[in-house]
């Protein structure tokens, strides 16, 4: 059998078409990529065209076998699992060949890596429900995250319910996507770059109040930075208010002295390097 690499457009529909075409050509791809540059030079490639009709047929077939598998695949597609397309491909082909019985065994060798990746995604989304920080920017709330997985689809429902009567956006800098919500409508769109503006006086004041609360609430006699870091890994800190340096607490166009953000008797949170903090938007997509 020849080695064949599939190239698709990077969408979930596109992935389903890879499955469709592999059955049509009666071949198993060696790898499924969406970026031509990452394909090793010596391999043959097949460009997979995304066809809505084909995608739907494959998807309906999967749902018929197991609705659980369908939702697992949709979630797995959002994860940062290495070679996730091939892992998903194997899951689909096993499902079509053997039926859904193996899905009941979480330790199954085809299912396990997919499950683990999905748990990682869901775990990260759960943490971020708490760790996201919004700023009030005019009449819009804005926030920024840098997750490993594409969590925006999983956060969408939660934040839309929380801010039902508001306008907000949440920017995922890792995957360069933005979740935008206004008057009952939410959408997720690609957005290449984007800069946040400086806070106004009220916003800066609330940031300061929060940092003060954070630094004060810790009990000195129980100081346990390692436990904190296990619960809240450092990679989340860069977008969290409590770990920003002094400039983050200074309002726009103000050279007035601001009180020191730390708490006099508390445990001041370590700062993450400046230049990383979320800043406010110049424009809304």
């Amino acid at each position, binding site marked *: 059998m020849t080695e064949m690499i599939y190239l698709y457009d990077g969408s979930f529909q596109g992935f389903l078409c890879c499955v469709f075409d592999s059955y049509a050509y009666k071949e198993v791809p060696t790898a499924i990529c969406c970026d031509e540059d990452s394909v090793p030079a010596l391999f043959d490639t097949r460009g997979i065209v995304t066809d809505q009709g084909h995608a739907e047929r494959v998807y309906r077939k999967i749902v018929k076998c197991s609705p659980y598998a369908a939702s697992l695949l949709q979630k797995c597609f959002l994860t940062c699992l290495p070679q996730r397309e091939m892992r998903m491909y194997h899951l689909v082909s096993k499902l079509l060949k053997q039926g859904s*019985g*193996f899905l*009941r*065994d*979480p*330790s199954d060798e085809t299912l*396990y890596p997919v499950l683990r990746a999905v748990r990682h995604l869901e775990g990260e989304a*759960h*943490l971020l*429900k*708490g*760790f*996201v*920080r*919004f*700023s*009030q920017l005019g009449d819009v*709330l804005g*926030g920024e995250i840098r997750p490993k997985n594409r969590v925006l689809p999983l956060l969408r429902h*939660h934040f839309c*319910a*929380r*801010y*039902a*009567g*508001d306008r907000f956006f949440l920017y995922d800098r890792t995957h360069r996507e933005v979740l935008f919500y206004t008057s009952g409508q939410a959408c997720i769109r690609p957005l290449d770059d984007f800069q946040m503006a400086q806070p106004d006086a009220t916003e800066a004041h*609330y940031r*300061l*109040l*929060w940092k*003060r*609360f*954070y*630094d*004060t*609430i*810790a*009990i*000195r*006699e*129980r*100081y*346990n*930075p*390692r*436990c*904190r870091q*296990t*619960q*809240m890994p450092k990679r989340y800190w860069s977008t*969290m*208010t*409590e770990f920003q340096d002094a400039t983050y607490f200074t309002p726009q166009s103000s050279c007035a002295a601001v*009180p020191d953000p730390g*708490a*006099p*008797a*508390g*445990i001041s*949170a370590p700062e993450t390097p400046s230049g990383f903090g979320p800043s406010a938007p110049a424009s809304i997509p």
Partner: protein
Amino acid sequence: MDVLEKLTILTDAAKYDAACTSSGGNRTAKKGMIGNTSSSVAGCCHSFSADGRCVTLLKVLMTNRCIYDCKYCVNRRSNDTPRAAFTPEELADLTIGFYRRNYIEGLFLSSGVFRSPDYTTELMIRALRLLREEYRFNGYIHAKAIPGTAPELVEQLGLLADRLSVNIELPSEAGLRILAPDKTKEAILAPMRQIRTRNLQSKEELIKYRHAPRFAPAGQSTQLIVGATSDSDFHILRLTQALYQQYRLKRVFYSAYVPVVEHALLPAKTVKPPLLREHRLYQADWLLRFYGFRTEELLDEHHPDFDIRLDPKCSWAVAHPEFFPVEVNTADYEALLRVPGIGVTSARRILSARRTGSLRPEQLPRLGVVMKRAQYFLTASGKLPEGLRFTQDGLLRRLIAAERPAPDFQQLSLFDAMA
């Protein structure tokens, strides 16, 4: 005094209260209201403080002025400390401002006793009413019911809050008499009984009328201080069990006593808070609530305290060799839960996976079983895990070695499968 300064004083005064969770609330988003408290955010931590504790709620006191003189408390009348009080408006502004920015899931409001329990509770009610009715706040509120408050006021508080708590603090009446002379056991238990009764009533009414007012829908909790008095773990855990059964408490929190004052009747200021002991109590509490254990199985008059080196479930297993090994392919759910290294999640996965075929030892880690503890206590298809040889003596040593390193102890969060 500006709000920043007040916030600093009133947070500092509130920080020794361990309760900080938003679980059990269920307010779905409503039109014209800000926020929601759905089950999807149960256990949602918005941050972790430098001591590794979950920060979910804006935990502050209404005021730290207090007419009482509880010996163990920083806010006691005789302590020379800066005092402050929030106005209801300041508190409501802070809560909404923090909530909108996703800093918090809601408010945890407690207070020193200012003038009288009734007067203080009225202040708290004013703040909460403003928050719910004017600011249309639909997020989580946990309020403290102060012993000695009139039942009518507790009633009003319960209609505004999701959860109420009355802190017992000292696990025995003797401790109370000496260290908190202004409080009596009866004054603490009365509001707890009232909250239990009203909570049940309101649940029944809700079945009949959809719009019946909801009284503390997330139930009640309490806190016990560990290490201020000489009460044993056995005593504390028996009290806990009674509170869960008779008072239908949702949670009991434990707080390792941090010596904040020199007092002849209290541990010296140099004594470190008993964090490990607190951790063991949380683990045992977990066993009572989710693993079908009873206090009497874990401790008795002859062994009144937990072995600090080993988690309570392992201790139980070591003391009950006749129960093991458990065969994972045939054991029922309750028996699986008794195996150290198997938690609620992994037990469920085992039940599901073994329907597809006989389980082998090497599959178990992928089902979430923590083998470094579980391996001594189970078989899979009749086989012990590969290459495992041990004596009963060696077992204890190996299990102690498998414990997590000391600095990682923490209050178990809702999602910790205590494996």
